[in-house]
């Protein structure tokens, strides 16, 4: 870990000032992934600007029934919020499925969204990785890729985004509030936050240097929505998703997002279109889910994820909206 300067931002403007002209500055929230990657030598910032004490840890219940969660809000705070527990069950379940209680208690919402892939090659500075070391090659494609992506990937990178929470946020059509360095605020739908790897896998989001995620807006859930989050992993707790699904269903609307399969939370838009407003049979759910994988790029050891996703989506439909019961 390179020696670095540390500064605690006193207010948002101060944070922007501190990072101005500092190409190797990073923001520190909970630090659960940043410090991890600094110890591994994957990230070597020269300046760490601590934004964890900025006033972005609030949770606001909005008049329209939506909720604004501050970017510095930590998991314990989010998990205890009554409104979120009542109205956004898939979000709470996704949150509680992630990492450990300790990590959840430390990690901020913004940091959760911006955490880096757990691809083991990305985390190991002694082996090639296009995301960490552009142009060095992808070790995972010819190597150990069982846990990596099957869709949205490229010949240059098959990393997955590891967040559970982001998957649920995608299903709730969350919008990310970003404070620019010049103090202006922009809103980024979560579906637009992440960029697919293409031939520039080291560029992961649309954020610009100095941008700060100050919060996430959750629109009110659709009327009559039922929702859940299911997660398959290699042990029963404290493991990243092999495949996960967040589902928000109403009689007319279907929203499905997958984790563990793609470089970002993966909305199954094709499936949603096919199933919206229908009362599908199990086979129809499966067929519609498979359709969303038409452009999949599975590798030998992770191809199983596609049928696993199909089975998970079917199970979630069965549990949330028993055939014929919803109409």
């Amino acid at each position, binding site marked *: 870990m390179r020696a670095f300067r540390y500064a605690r931002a006193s207010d948002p403007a101060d944070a922007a000032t501190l990072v101005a002209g500092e190409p190797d500055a990073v923001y520190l929230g909970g630090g659960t992934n940043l410090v991890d990657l600094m110890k591994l030598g994957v990230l070597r910032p020269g300046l760490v600007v601590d934004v964890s004490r900025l006033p972005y840890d609030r949770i606001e219940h909005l008049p329209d029934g939506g909720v604004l969660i501050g970017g510095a809000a930590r998991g314990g705070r989010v998990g205890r919020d009554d409104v979120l527990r009542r109205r956004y069950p898939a979000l709470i379940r996704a949150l509680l499925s992630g990492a450990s209680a300790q990590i959840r208690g430390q990690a901020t919402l913004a940091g959760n969204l911006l955490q880096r892939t757990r691809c083991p090659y990305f985390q190991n500075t002694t082996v090639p990785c296009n995301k960490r070391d552009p142009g060095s090659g992808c070790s995972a494609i010819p190597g150990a890729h069982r846990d990596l992506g099957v869709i949205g990937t490229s010949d240059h990178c098959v990393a997955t985004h590891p967040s559970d929470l982001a998957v649920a946020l995608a299903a709730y059509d969350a919008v990310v509030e970003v404070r620019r360095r010049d103090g202006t605020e922009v809103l980024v739908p979560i579906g637009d936050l992440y960029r697919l790897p293409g031939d520039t896998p080291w560029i992961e989001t649309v954020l610009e240097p100095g941008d700060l995620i100050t919060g996430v807006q959750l629109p009110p859930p659709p009327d009559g929505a039922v929702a859940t989050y299911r997660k398959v992993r290699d042990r029963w*707790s404290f493991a990243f998703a092999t495949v996960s699904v967040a589902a928000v269903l109403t009689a007319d609307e279907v929203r499905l997002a997958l984790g563990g399969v793609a470089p970002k939370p993966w909305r199954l838009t094709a499936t949603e279109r096919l199933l919206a407003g229908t009362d599908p049979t199990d086979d129809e759910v499966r067929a519609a889910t498979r359709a969303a994988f038409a452009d999949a790029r599975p590798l030998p050891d992770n191809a199983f994820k596609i049928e696993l996703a199909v089975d998970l989506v079917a199970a979630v439909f069965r549990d949330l909206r028993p055939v014929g019961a919803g109409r």
Partner: protein
Amino acid sequence: MTDQLRGEVVLRVNGVDRVVNLDNRTTLLDALREHLRLTGTKKGCDHGQCGACTVLVDGERANSCLLLAVAVEGRAVTTVEGLADGDELHPLQRAFIAHDGFQCGYCTPGQICSAVGMLAEVAGGLPSWVSADLVAAPELDDDEIRERMSGNLCRCGAYAGIVAAIREVADG
């Protein structure tokens, strides 16, 4: 704005302010172990993957290996050394002995600090992944204890004793 790579940090540990001159890179875990001689907090993985370094920060459990010490300034840190009341052990410490909730003992301080924080989370109404009802006050059955304690690995496999010890304290 500082150009310093290290500096004096005031760490409030177990109710006492300690002034230490630390490299910015020093984690809370290393500050405790290498600078404050509080070696009860253990290093098992140094990446937040095992829970051996669990301490309480402002009453909430945290992996001290992932906290930069300089960023913890002003917060109240409680380590395993701060749980007992003089010679009187914390009830969880007594229960871990009574139920043989450890073997090698290396994960134990983290388990106990974690359990202290966990019981507070339950009292505060925080549900868990295995809670059937996210809204109701959580009922701390064994599966709830297991899930909530899964951030603390025990390679000796003392989980049954750990659950029994926490169960006893939770049931009062």
